[in-house]
């Protein structure tokens, strides 16, 4: 099982996950929300992680920063960040990395700021935690600098304002500023950073991520359920399903030729301009994620897959196998599927 998901990758890896397993106890036995997941994130890339709710993408992010909510726990595997295994670090050592070398931008800008503290206090709190040697005025100067960088106007006034005085987009910029304020971030993990925002603001925030990524030479893991977000920003995409990566590919390849049936399903759910009038409903993927307390022996997508073959697909969990340069897929039938799909399209038209 080990290292199967490690993509060759062009550059050196900044983060390597090897067999990471996050489990939650339950009355029916513990279940793995992230199941022996291996992945290598290359320095300087934007990696999109997509999947529907409950596929484990947020838990993957939390596992990397060491904040899996109890009673969940990262029970196995290694998370190598610049060669250091984060899983083995003490809680305080992990705290020192959080917000400094690895930063997180949360999903909900509306509730992720303390409503009773001024913006300035919350921004500089990060410096208090990581740069205790800085003076008050240095912290303030740095806060102003980073606010400019993320496109917050009237930064001086904003410092004295409370969160409720700022719009959602502005608050998300503040959250991004908090992530960058130490100035040493190598890996930025954005967990659904635009889900709570409307589309215009979403576009601005994504643009900001792309700009910051090149300015700061940082690596970004962008977690989202929205393929459109990934298409706009990511270099590479990992598609997750039920705790596993089912497909890993450069973004254009993925959109051009999705290999895994789940990826195809996701792409088909995107509303398309000029879709035929007969398809008045938006496409969906029928069914739901299997019960992870009793994971099926075979492919986890078996019960929802239009191409599933009994006897093959439900017999064993397919491995994540290399398909082409930088392309990986976890499907027993990926070789046959393009033809099958083409036939289906032909039959439909």
């Amino acid at each position, binding site marked *: 099982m080990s290292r199967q998901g490690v993509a060759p990758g062009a550059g050196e890896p900044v983060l390597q996950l090897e067999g990471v397993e996050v489990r939650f106890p339950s009355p029916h036995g513990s279940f793995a929300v992230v199941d022996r997941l291996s992945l290598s994130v290359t320095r300087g890339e934007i990696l999109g992680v997509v999947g529907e709710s409950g596929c484990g993408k947020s838990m993957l992010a939390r596992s990397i*920063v060491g*904040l899996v*909510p109890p009673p969940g726990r990262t029970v196995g595997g290694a998370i190598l960040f610049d060669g250091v295994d984060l899983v083995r670090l003490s809680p305080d050592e992990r*705290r*020192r*990395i*959080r*917000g*400094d070398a690895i*930063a*997180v931008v*949360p999903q*909900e800008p509306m*509730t*992720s*700021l*303390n*409503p*009773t*503290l001024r913006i300035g206090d*919350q921004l500089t*709190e*990060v410096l*208090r*935690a*990581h740069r205790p040697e800085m003076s008050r005025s240095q912290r303030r100067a740095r806060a102003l600098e980073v606010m400019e960088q993320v496109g917050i*106007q009237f930064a001086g006034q904003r410092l004295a*304002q409370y969160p*409720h*005085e*700022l*719009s*959602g*987009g*502005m608050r998300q910029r503040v*959250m991004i500023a*908090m*992530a960058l304020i130490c100035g040493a971030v190598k890996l930025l993990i954005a967990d659904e950073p635009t889900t709570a925002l409307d589309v215009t*603001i979403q576009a601005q925030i994504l643009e900001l991520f792309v700009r910051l990524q090149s300015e700061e030479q940082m690596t970004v893991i962008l977690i989202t359920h929205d393929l459109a977000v990934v298409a706009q920003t990511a270099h590479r995409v990992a598609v997750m399903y039920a705790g596993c990566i089912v497909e890993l590919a450069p973004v254009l390849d993925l959109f051009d030729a999705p290999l895994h049936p789940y990826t195809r399903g996701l792409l088909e759910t995107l509303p398309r301009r000029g879709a035929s009038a007969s398809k008045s409903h938006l496409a969906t993927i029928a069914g739901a994620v299997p019960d992870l307390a009793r994971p099926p022996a075979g492919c986890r997508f078996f019960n929802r897959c239009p191409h599933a073959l009994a006897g093959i697909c439900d017999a064993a969990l397919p491995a994540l196998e290399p398909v082409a340069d930088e392309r990986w897929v976890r499907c027993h039938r990926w070789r046959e599927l393009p033809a099958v799909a083409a036939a289906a399209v032909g039959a439909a038209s």
Partner: protein
Amino acid sequence: MTPAAAEATTPSTARSALRAIRRAGPMLLSGGTVLALVVLASLFVPLLVEIDPLGIDVAQKLLPPSAEHWLGTDEFGREVLDRLIIGAHISLRVAFAATLLTAVLGIALGALSGQYRLADSIIGRFSDALLVFPGFVLAIMILAALGPSELNVVLAVVVLYVPRVIRTVRASIIEFRSADFVQAARAVGVGDMRLLVVHILPKSFGPVMVQLTFGFAWAILVEAGLSFLGLGPPPPSPSWGNMISAAREFIRTAPWIMIAPGVMITITVLSLNLIGDGLRDLVDPRLQGKVGP
């Protein structure tokens, strides 16, 4: 740039806040005024007028209220008004000390039990055990064991009231420790201690203030009750409870000796309860009628 402060306060929350203030305002104002009068009178009258709560003058005993003796005199000829004013010192001092100690202990222990599982089970069992007993009976037991004194009354009130504060603090810590803004602060490396002190604990101050106001009123009642039973600050200290206790014999012949401290206890406790109700409505309108012993 997106317009800031667009959703600063939505009309509905503004309106409900206004409604809460309108309802709580009169309660806070009337309760606060009465309490302020009692406290100010007990503090400043002794500075302005010569007061002699212990001066025995047997010739002047059991005189009814008159222009000379506003509230009459007691069985030793002592001025009831003078004793009432000094009695306020004792009653309020005991209640204040008890409330302060309750606040400090309650917040500290509540924070501990909200934060650590082991502390929670130990502290939780202890407070459950204390809450099982009817409060006043336990107070009598404590005083009977420790002996009557002002300090022991304070201790009894603290022991009885601290579990309620612990529970309040613990509940709000548990509520807010998983709040998004706490998670977000944790995710940028803010330490546990600062999370607790800066982000989580302040959220409990509203409910705790409400609780302490009721606790203050309750402490006055407990002090009076214990004194009445002879378990409070020993005579001749003129605490309100002591005064009522001593006046029992004269309830038929000289009822004013008992009525005066009784009225003081009533209006002080009532004003504190009004303040508590008002604060509660401001802090959380959903809690109406649910806090207090």
